[in-house]
């Protein structure tokens, strides 16, 4: 549908590569894959939240023939998950630290038989005291009681105490968020297939093949060439398939190697919600000093996350959380103190936003409260206090003269007519049937890994020239970035087609397979379009140059030439078609030609990991949401009616896909704001089904208006910045602020529900 123009494909709404097979039901998700003689696996889990394993008893009445059992003793390699803190076992051998922690595995010919066998293994565990409830953690923390910390990190700029002393007004408030579930609609699943050489092939639903592969090598004590990991079509991830799939892959692989058969585990919804990662619950306290004119003199933030039983990704979630905790507003004297508490719950983990949604719920609610404290409007206060070029962020990163923040804020205020509408907010005072409120949130997301992450990973990606299925030449993208719905496949093809100047249908992007692709880093942190896109652009340019040299030598008698819109043209006007040239090149040089490139950070990037000082991210994407809500006065039912979203994600590679990311992320954010909630009861997540964990449906969503402002990343050819996570970050505070102006009461902990509004109104007379 798209024709080649001089402009190329970047910036055009190219149709998704994978849409047709998905819409026809032909895409093969892991649940759709069956292997010959395949067995099914199941997990034996700890029935207690904390204790010591004294044995595993097998029910003597159960028929154990045709069942394979794997215990920690069967693990050929190391029984520990490789992460920053190597504290989590694949199978708990001595101490169990959460209810449901895996202690053994079984496989059997049918799924029913496997689950029956798992139920017939009884772990004997000596119980010891456990800490499971987030409320209890916060209570103990505030009382100065003893807690175990998985990680702590501080950021310090200037002298916050001094700044607070100089203030005329000091505002101190606490904000909280609870557990939240990614709820990708395709549950976690994996298949392991033993190979003749003693190795294993693992395929399944995952975001990061190169997290899984080294993990399996260590667990199985196998060299990398014997462990092959392949992605199947992924039915949504949102971070939930970042670190967890390594565990599931390990379980399937252990069972496959012991049974000598393919083994599949696909969770049902309940097991998936109960025992996979959740968003970290948070408690954040802001203490902020202001001048009478509404400038910030000093700022102290205490940032507490609940990490669960093991550290896993918590240190990096905390890093992102504290960097975003007081970002966007000018202040020379800031301290942010971050901690992750250990509890006896499944490890909290990655979920779109990765610490930033918690940070912005607190920050953007708080900024509204600051405005109020000095008698300013929320928009005025923000316009006065946002960074100007040359300011520094909390970590001391210099804000460039031109950045997207002011533009998105002004544009969102203008498009939503914030000023005029703000005057009409009900504030719980009008007698009409519905209260109206409007509120805003101004926020950002650091694109790519935090700190020295990108420098350490050195993302690699390649393009290959090969013969396509129909015999013509194909440019094949070799990158480990996964398509999980976000559109990576399409966007990266657009970028490569443009870099080469060939028609996009010449560019293919098969699902990653570690036997075939280099490590481009994980598909996380809003880094794929920006980082891997930049690398692929460079790789494709290298291919283009090689092809141009070849054509000039072999067809144009050494005359220089350029490849444009699928045709090589020489200086004197001779021309040659890409197809012809590429096939000839392949014949001459061999079967496949690979061109690889590596990511480099902007020149002069500095980061001090100890002190958390310096350039925390290569760049930031900025956004402003204005939310309008209605609240029924009689029932306090909440109806978001409209969101005006303005975002700077740098160059927009595909406007339709980008808009889809914003709409989807925003709606997840509305769920976080108003309905998504998982309590804890006896060490288990309470909302373990879709009947009880409610996410937004088609009737729950407001009118959404999305506008992009382009402030490109200056250090790559594409100019794209991060997109994936940003849209979720600001939804909750925008809605929360709007509700405050509708009802006249502020709710400090998510989700905001009619019950909480009711209680807040009942308590009239308290501080607002």
């Amino acid at each position, binding site marked *: 549908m798209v024709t080649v123009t001089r402009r190329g494909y970047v910036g055009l709404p190219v149709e998704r590569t*994978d849409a047709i097979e998905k819409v026809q*039901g*032909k*895409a093969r998700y892991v649940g759709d894959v069956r292997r010959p003689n395949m067995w099914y696996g199941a997990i034996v889990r700890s029935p207690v939240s904390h204790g010591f394993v004294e044995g595993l008893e097998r029910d003597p009445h159960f028929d154990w023939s045709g069942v394979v059992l794997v215990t920690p003793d069967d693990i050929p390699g190391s029984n520990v998950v490789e992460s920053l803190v190597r504290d989590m076992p694949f199978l708990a051998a001595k101490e169990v630290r959460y209810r449901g922690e895996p202690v053994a595995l079984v496989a059997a010919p049918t799924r029913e038989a496997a689950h*029956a066998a798992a139920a017939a293994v009884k772990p004997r565990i000596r119980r010891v005291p456990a800490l499971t409830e987030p409320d209890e953690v916060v209570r103990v923390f505030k009382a100065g009681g003893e807690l175990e910390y998985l990680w702590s990190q501080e950021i310090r700029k200037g002298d916050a105490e001094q700044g607070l002393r100089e203030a005329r007004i000091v505002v101190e408030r606490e904000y909280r968020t609870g557990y939240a579930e990614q709820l990708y*609609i395709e549950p976690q699943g994996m298949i392991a297939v033993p190979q003749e050489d003693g190795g294993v092939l693992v395929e399944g639903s995952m975001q990061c093949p190169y997290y899984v592969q080294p993990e399996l090598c260590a667990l199985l004590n196998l060299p990398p060439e014997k462990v092959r990991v392949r992605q199947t079509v992924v039915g949504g991830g949102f971070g939930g398939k970042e670190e967890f799939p390594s565990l599931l892959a390990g379980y399937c692989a252990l069972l496959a190697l012991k049974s000598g058969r393919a083994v599949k585990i696909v969770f049902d919804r309940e097991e998936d919600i109960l025992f996979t990662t959740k968003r970290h619950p948070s408690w954040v306290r802001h203490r902020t000093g202001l001048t009478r004119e509404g400038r910030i003199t000093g700022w102290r933030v205490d940032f507490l996350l609940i990490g669960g039983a093991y550290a896993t990704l918590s240190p990096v979630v905390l890093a992102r959380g504290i960097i975003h905790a007081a970002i966007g507003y000018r202040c020379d004297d800031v301290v942010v103190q971050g901690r992750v508490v250990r509890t006896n719950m499944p490890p909290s983990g990655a979920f779109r936003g990765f610490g930033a949604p918690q940070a912005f719920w607190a920050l953007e609610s708080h900024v509204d409260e600051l405005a109020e404290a000095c008698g300013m409007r929320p928009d005025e206060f923000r316009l006065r206090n946002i960074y100007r070029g040359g300011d520094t962020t909390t970590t001391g990163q210099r804000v460039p003269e031109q950045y997207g923040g002011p533009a998105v804020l002004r544009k969102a205020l203008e498009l939503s007519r914030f000023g005029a509408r703000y005057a009409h907010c009900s504030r719980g005072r009008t007698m009409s049937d519905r209260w109206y409120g409007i509120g805003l949130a101004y926020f950002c997301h650091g694109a790519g890994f935090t700190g020295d992450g990108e420098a350490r990973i050195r993302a690699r990606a390649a393009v290959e020239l090969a013969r396509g299925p129909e015999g013509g030449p194909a440019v094949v993208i070799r990158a480990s970035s996964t398509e999980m719905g976000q559109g990576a496949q399409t966007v990266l093809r657009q970028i490569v087609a443009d870099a080469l100047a060939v028609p996009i249908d010449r560019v293919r992007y098969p699902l990653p397979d570690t036997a075939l692709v280099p490590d481009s880093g994980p598909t996380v942190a809003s880094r794929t379009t920006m980082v891997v896109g930049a690398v692929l652009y460079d790789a494709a340019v290298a291919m283009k140059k090689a092809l141009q040299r070849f054509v000039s030598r072999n067809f144009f008698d050494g005359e220089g030439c350029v490849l444009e819109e699928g045709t090589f043209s020489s200086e004197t006007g001779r021309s040659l078609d890409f197809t012809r040239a590429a096939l000839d090149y392949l014949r001459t040089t061999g079967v496949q030609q690979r061109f690889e490139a590596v990511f480099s950070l902007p020149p002069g990037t500095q980061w001090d990991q100890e002190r958390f000082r310096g350039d925390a991210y290569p760049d930031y994407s900025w956004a402003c949401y204005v939310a309008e809500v209605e609240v029924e006065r009689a029932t306090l039912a909440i109806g978001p009616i409209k969101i005006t979203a303005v975002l700077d994600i740098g160059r927009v590679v595909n406007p339709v896909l980008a808009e889809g990311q914003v709409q989807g992320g925003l709606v997840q954010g509305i769920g976080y704001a108003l309905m998504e909630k998982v309590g804890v009861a006896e060490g288990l997540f309470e909302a373990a089904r879709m*009947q009880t964990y409610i996410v937004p449906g088609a009737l729950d969503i407001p009118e959404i208006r999305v506008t992009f402002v382009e402030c490109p990343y200056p250090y790559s050819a594409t100019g794209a910045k991060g997109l994936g996570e940003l849209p979720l970050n600001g939804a909750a505070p925008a809605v929360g602020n709007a509700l405050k102006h509708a009802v006249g009461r502020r709710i400090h902990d998510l989700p905001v529900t009619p019950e909480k509004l009711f209680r807040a109104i009942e308590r009239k007379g308290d501080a607002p």
Partner: protein
Amino acid sequence: MNGEPARENAPAEDWIRRTWLVNGREVSLRVPPLRRVLDILREELGLTGAKEGCGEGECGACTVLVDDQPVCACLLVAAQLPNRSRILTIEGLSAMEEGRILEEAYVEAGAVQCGFCIPGMVMASYALLRRNSAPTERQIREALAGNICRCTGYVKIVEAVGRAAERMGRAAAGR
């Protein structure tokens, strides 16, 4: 599924024989009476377009049409479906003109992300358009309220159904 591991273990003599019209083709099977229609479609008949997202009627990923009504195939067991029942899955709809129009509208609107909810969405959309050829936006949202999508925020899905309705209307009017 692991909640009720025993439900399919009916002794072979209790199995029932059923003949259904699946995507227009007659299919005869002998199955345990409590085997879920979703499993029969996916495992026995290889029709994996209907997905399992929750197994309890909440997500709609398993939506198929039985005698023109949208149902959750995960909630239906073999014994509940009499002989001659007509089952339509995404595979069957794809082969029909209406299916083609709907699919094209979904693709063009950018309504597909991870795709896991999409076959169910398309089936629910088709069921709506069968009974209401010119639905309002509100009616589209109501018809899709039982189908959860975690990726798209529904905006483009609703748009796609609107587009498809228009085109089917045009096609029906012979233009």
